[in-house]
């Protein structure tokens, strides 16, 4: 899987016009530079070799753990990753946390009060959350909370070793909430329908016939069963969260992997693009593995071959 995707991305980069060298040279220099000089630079970076040879060299070194160097800055890619990955992880994890908790609880409330005003307004809010693009929310949130109300900073991220945890929180609130918004809306809609589905099942009546209080019937018997499909959904939305973070990182100047990705694509910095996209693929695959483990934990029917 990783192999196929890496090849596809590599081919895609090859097909796009220009190469790293043409981005390196400033426009003023471009008029004076000779074709020989350009060729020499290409040779130095190994760009004169054929497409497949370059892919092979890249692949073998990648397997050995050598991510290579960024063509734009000459910095080791591993170094860039160490700087940017924690920032993105921080952002997405906080967003994931918010969206899961908010989405599930709102969905359950909505299901339990089906047909009420609360349910209807949550449904409308959910539809809006799903359909309005997040960069729009991002900009509106900046306008409202950062510029008008001046409650929270406009963007950026403070470096871990400079500030205490407490100082860093205001910076992460806006981007993570905006990022969480779409996931929350999706999780809420899904939790609601899943919960309604479960509440109509017969074992809920059984639970009620045992004379247990309503909260225990709803949460222990209802929500516990309704949770499985919601976990699967959130898991499959995880890549979306990371994809979304690319945009949100741009909007909030968050120095994460998403903004790095955009820069590297613009510069045709193929070693960096390759590494980052490989990492995305890796995250998606890991996410589905985690989902499998989680569903087995939640739903005993999935645990097979244990007998």
């Amino acid at each position: 899987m990783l192999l196929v995707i890496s090849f596809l991305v590599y081919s895609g980069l090859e097909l796009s016009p220009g190469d790293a060298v043409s981005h390196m040279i400033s426009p003023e220099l471009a008029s004076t530079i000779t074709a020989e000089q350009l060729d020499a630079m290409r040779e130095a970076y190994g760009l004169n070799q054929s497409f497949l040879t370059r892919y092979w060299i890249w692949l073998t070194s990648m397997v050995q753990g050598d991510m290579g160097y960024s063509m734009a800055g000459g910095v080791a890619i591993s170094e860039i990753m160490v700087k940017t990955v924690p920032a993105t992880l921080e952002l997405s994890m906080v967003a994931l946390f918010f969206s899961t908790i908010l989405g599930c609880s709102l969905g359950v409330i909505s299901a339990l009060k089906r047909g009420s005003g609360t349910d209807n307004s949550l449904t409308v809010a959910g539809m809006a959350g799903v359909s309005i693009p997040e960069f729009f929310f991002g900009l509106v949130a900046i306008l409202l909370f950062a510029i008008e109300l001046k409650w929270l900073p406009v963007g950026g991220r403070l470096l871990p070793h400079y500030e205490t945890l407490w100082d860093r929180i205001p910076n992460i609130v806006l981007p993570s909430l905006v990022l969480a918004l779409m996931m929350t809306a999706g999780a809420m809609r899904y939790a609601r329908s899943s919960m309604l589905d479960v509440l109509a099942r017969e074992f809920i009546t059984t639970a009620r016939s045992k004379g247990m209080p309503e909260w225990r019937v709803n949460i222990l018997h209802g929500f516990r069963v309704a949770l499985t499909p919601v976990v699967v959904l959130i898991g499959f939305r995880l890549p979306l969260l990371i994809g979304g973070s690319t945009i949100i990182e741009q909007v909030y100047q968050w120095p994460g992997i998403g903004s790095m990705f955009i820069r590297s694509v613009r510069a045709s910095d193929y070693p960096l693009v390759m590494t980052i996209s490989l990492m995305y693929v890796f995250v998606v695959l890991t996410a589905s593995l985690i989902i499998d483990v989680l569903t087995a934990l939640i739903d005993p029917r999935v645990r097979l071959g244990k007998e």
Partner: protein
Amino acid sequence: MEDKNNIALSVRDLKTFFYTNNRCNKAVNGVSFDVEKGKTLCIVGESGCGKSVTAATIMQLLPTLSRIEEGEIKFQKDDKIINIEKLEKNGKEMREIRGSDIAMIFQDPMTALNPVYTVGFQISENLKYHTNLNKKEIREKCISLLNDMGIPLPEKRVDEYPHSYSGGMRQRAMIAMAMACNPKILIADEPTTALDVTIQAQIFELMDKLKKENDTAIILITHDMGVVAELADNVAVMYMGNIVEAGTADDVLRRPTHPYTKALLESVPVLGRGKNQDINPIKGSTPDPYNRPIGCQFAPRCNWQTESCDVMPEITQINETHQVRCHKYEQFFEKYK
């Protein structure tokens, strides 16, 4: 039936209506019966006649669109008489009765157990809410209940999930759950419809044993006349929300007086009479509950229909135990004299 102390549950003129799309379905339309301690009352009738709704009404487990319109459900708890219909649907008092004094077994054991909890956990919930046993005692009780139900290796099975139980075992587990607190009344809503015949016999044997050992009254809802003949002490035949005939099993099965009961009995093949026996299905089908016939509900399908049937017949007491809702019952009853 005169001895009031013998009656565990008494239902009087119960009406439960469903409201959908501004229409009203009178699912249970004036039902009265008594359940005696340690006896089995079978409620028989075809699909949609209100049997299950009656059961759900007694447990106050009705869906949101329905409500008890009229009538009384009197439950005798120790020496007090509790009017169930006056209790709050999911209030504390109702919950105390549910599962502890009146327990219920459902039709399909495949869906009535929660798939994500162990059988032991689901039985223990009942004990947790209605007894003061501690954790260890609850576990022991669960194991002994499963053992009583004839589940092999109960110490191991108690920690297993419903999906590793067979259909018959699940129904046993359901019964274990229902019997956990020694209820005074056990309501079984077609408990064996989803099971095959050999298992059916085992389940009924088990219920009969429990009835004798614990003096539990059983309300058995079924449409299987064979089951009725086997288990019932008393029988109530329902049609379109009314009880059309009620009495002891002997009364109803041997001296059926209502044309509907007669028709029901005639539509059952009898083992040993060979393949050429006459089986008379009831003609037509149950009327649309939103478009009921006037008067006697069975009249349009009845072979003996006359003009007098345009008025709903009152309940007539034939003898101490036997009652019927038909204008022309005498005609039928003559024969048995």
